[in-house]
């Protein structure tokens, strides 16, 4: 019972009930309309038949007066299934015809009877007494008076239209009953099916909520809307799992990589207190402590920002940005540093603005990180170190490449350089948080682009690849 109630409480059940109601109303209306149309047609046919009779009787009367009329009427009245004929005198006494009695008042009117009346056929009252005919007949008729004050009634039994109406009514009741039963069955089975699938999805989501984050919603082979919904929910769960994994990685990395500098910080403070240090030693220890703390803060902010960017794209943060202007800015920002490091910094750009839907600050920061790296690593290399910025459109992409002729990165390590805190062994001595390229990669992902690494023979080429049209950006 409870199960049935649950099914009745489903959307499918409510919808089928609504459909059933609407359909029943329409069907009823249709049946009633058809019935009345057919009944009207039958009535008008009856009327035509009576008119025809009257014309025949009229001709007989014209030919031989009352006697002929009576003869013709008698003859016709005796035929099987005959119409109604009756001749009465002015007092309503029946003189001739096949009508035995009439509903009172009919003979007082002249012309068509307004509504069906009841009558008894000649000889039928006996039969009724014997119980063979159970009901009175209904008929319509035309009544007119002869100049000799006799009353003539010509009519026709309405049994057929009445029968038709009854058949239609019965059909309507049966149809509605079958329809209701059908709707109830459909409703029961569809509702139960929907309920079962939703129950499975609910059960799966309860398991996931209970902590089984690897669980996914079941997908049948039907590919219907339930599957699409489950599929989307699964994708959502995948995304949540990925974000979760990212978060876990960040906290692991923070724990692991901030511990080292924090320990160093602590040891330095301890060392400064040990022995009998001079004021200058204190000062130096404190200054180094501040410098180290600043580096820690910087690292921390970078981690926060990467996590923020990886959380997803936000249209609020983007405007139309000129990549060319960003290249100019970064070139100008790094030119003195490059010069000091003995690195030649050049930039080649196409004519005019290179518009792109994005965030100027983020792209600027990502590019600075890459250029910073390039200058840092190429400055050590022997012959004429140089860093080149190349901005170009290629197909439906915009490529911003930073080439250097430094030591480069072995192909095997190229995927690793964007991982958080990864610094290739030989570069451990270089200052930096190890987050520069991770941040650049996060910025590119945020913009729906990617970071590509290639060999510059010698050196490294890092390409920031942006989709030229914002439509191709994934949300």
């Amino acid at each position, binding site marked *: 019972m409870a199960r049935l109630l649950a099914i009745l409480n489903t959307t499918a059940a409510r919808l089928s009930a609504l459909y059933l109601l609407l359909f029943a109303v329409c069907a009823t209306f249709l049946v009633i309309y058809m019935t009345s149309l057919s009944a009207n047609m039958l009535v008008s046919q009856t009327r035509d038949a009576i008119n025809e009779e009257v014309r025949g009787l009229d001709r007989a009367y014209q030919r031989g007066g009352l006697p002929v009329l009576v003869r013709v009427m008698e003859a016709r009245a005796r035929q099987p299934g005959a119409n109604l004929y009756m001749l009465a005198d002015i007092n309503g006494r029946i003189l001739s015809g096949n009508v035995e009695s009439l509903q009172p008042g009919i003979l007082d009117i002249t012309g068509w009877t307004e509504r069906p009346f009841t009558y008894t056929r000649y000889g039928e009252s006996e039969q009724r007494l014997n119980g063979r005919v159970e009901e009175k007949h209904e008929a319509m008729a035309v009544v007119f008076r002869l100049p000799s004050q006799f009353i003539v009634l010509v009519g026709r039994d309405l049994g057929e239209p009445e029968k038709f109406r009854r058949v239609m009514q019965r059909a309507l009741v049966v149809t509605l009953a079958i329809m209701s039963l059908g709707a109830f069955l459909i409703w029961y089975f569809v509702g139960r099916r929907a309920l079962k699938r939703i129950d499975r999805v609910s059960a799966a989501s309860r398991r996931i909520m209970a902590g089984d984050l690897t669980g996914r919603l079941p997908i049948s082979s039907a590919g219907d809307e339930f599957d699409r919904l489950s599929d989307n929910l699964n994708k959502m769960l995948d995304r949540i799992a990925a974000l979760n994994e990212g978060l876990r990685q960040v906290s692991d990395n923070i724990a692991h990589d901030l511990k080292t500098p924090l320990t160093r910080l602590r040891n330095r403070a301890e060392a400064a207190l040990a022995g009998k240090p001079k004021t200058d030693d204190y000062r130096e220890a404190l*200054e180094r402590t*501040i*410098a180290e*703390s*600043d580096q820690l*803060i*910087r690292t*921390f*902010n*970078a981690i*926060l*920002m990467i*996590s*923020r*960017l990886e959380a997803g794209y*936000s249209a*609020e*943060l983007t405007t139309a940005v000129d990549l060319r202007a960003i290249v100019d*800015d970064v070139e*100008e*920002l*790094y030119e*003195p*540093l490059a*010069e*000091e490091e003995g690195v030649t910094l050049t930039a080649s750009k196409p004519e005019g603005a290179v518009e792109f839907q994005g*965030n100027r*600050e*983020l792209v*600027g*920061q990502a590019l*600075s*990180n890459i250029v*910073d790296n390039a200058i840092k690593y190429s400055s050590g290399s022997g012959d004429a170190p140089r860093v080149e910025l190349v901005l170009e459109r290629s197909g439906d992409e915009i490529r911003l490449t930073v080439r250097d002729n430094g030591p480069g990165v072995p192909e095997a390590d190229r995927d690793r350089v964007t991982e958080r805190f990864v610094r290739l062994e030989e570069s451990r001595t270089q*200052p*930096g948080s190890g987050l*520069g390229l991770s941040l650049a990669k996060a910025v590119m992902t945020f913009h729906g682009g990617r970071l590509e690494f290639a060999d510059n023979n010698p050196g490294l080429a890092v390409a920031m690849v942006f989709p030229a049209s914002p439509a191709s950006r994934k949300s």
Partner: protein
Amino acid sequence: MKILVIEDDREAADYLKNAFAEAGHTADIARDGDSGFALADSGSYDVYIVDRMLPRRDGLSIITELREGGNKTPALILSALGEVDDRVTGLRAGGDDYLTKPYAFSELLARVEVLERRSGAKEVETVYRVADLELDRLSHTVRRAGREIVLQPREFRLLEYMMRHAGQVVTRTMLLENVWDYHFDPQTNVIDVHISRLRGKIEKGFDKPLLHTVRGAGYMLKD
């Protein structure tokens, strides 16, 4: 300078109070949004430092309501939230500067001192002077002891910013924000190289150094 610090973390607030006192300023502390707003609305402060997330009332709404009431006292927003869009929302709410936690006190101090001075009249001056160094904002010329110094456009803006805030510490981040209009932590020593170039141009051949490095904080242009 009288500073109002609206910050719910007791330790952080006490630290700020002491640190500001050491730097020669007085700081009042409010520990929740309501009392912070009441203090800000009644007292006369030179700068507000407002934490974004406060008990009872969030920091941004305090600033918005103060601004709606015609209060123009500069406000610096402190936030533990991430970067990028938070700064934009903060500034849009009526804040004048934005700093993300964790921050270095030297950075906060430099920004607060610059904020206080911002309400002064320096903006409308067309010629800045520090000792015998002179910068004309209209004709875009720089002279020292009457001798013209040729600067690149960016160097000019750098010097202009330093001179507007002469006698105050400006940090590398502040320079990147105000001279280059990028809001990120500059890597290693990019800004330092620009400063040393500028220093070379305005100090070479003159006895007196004007552009000083403040260790652990940034730079200061002073007599």
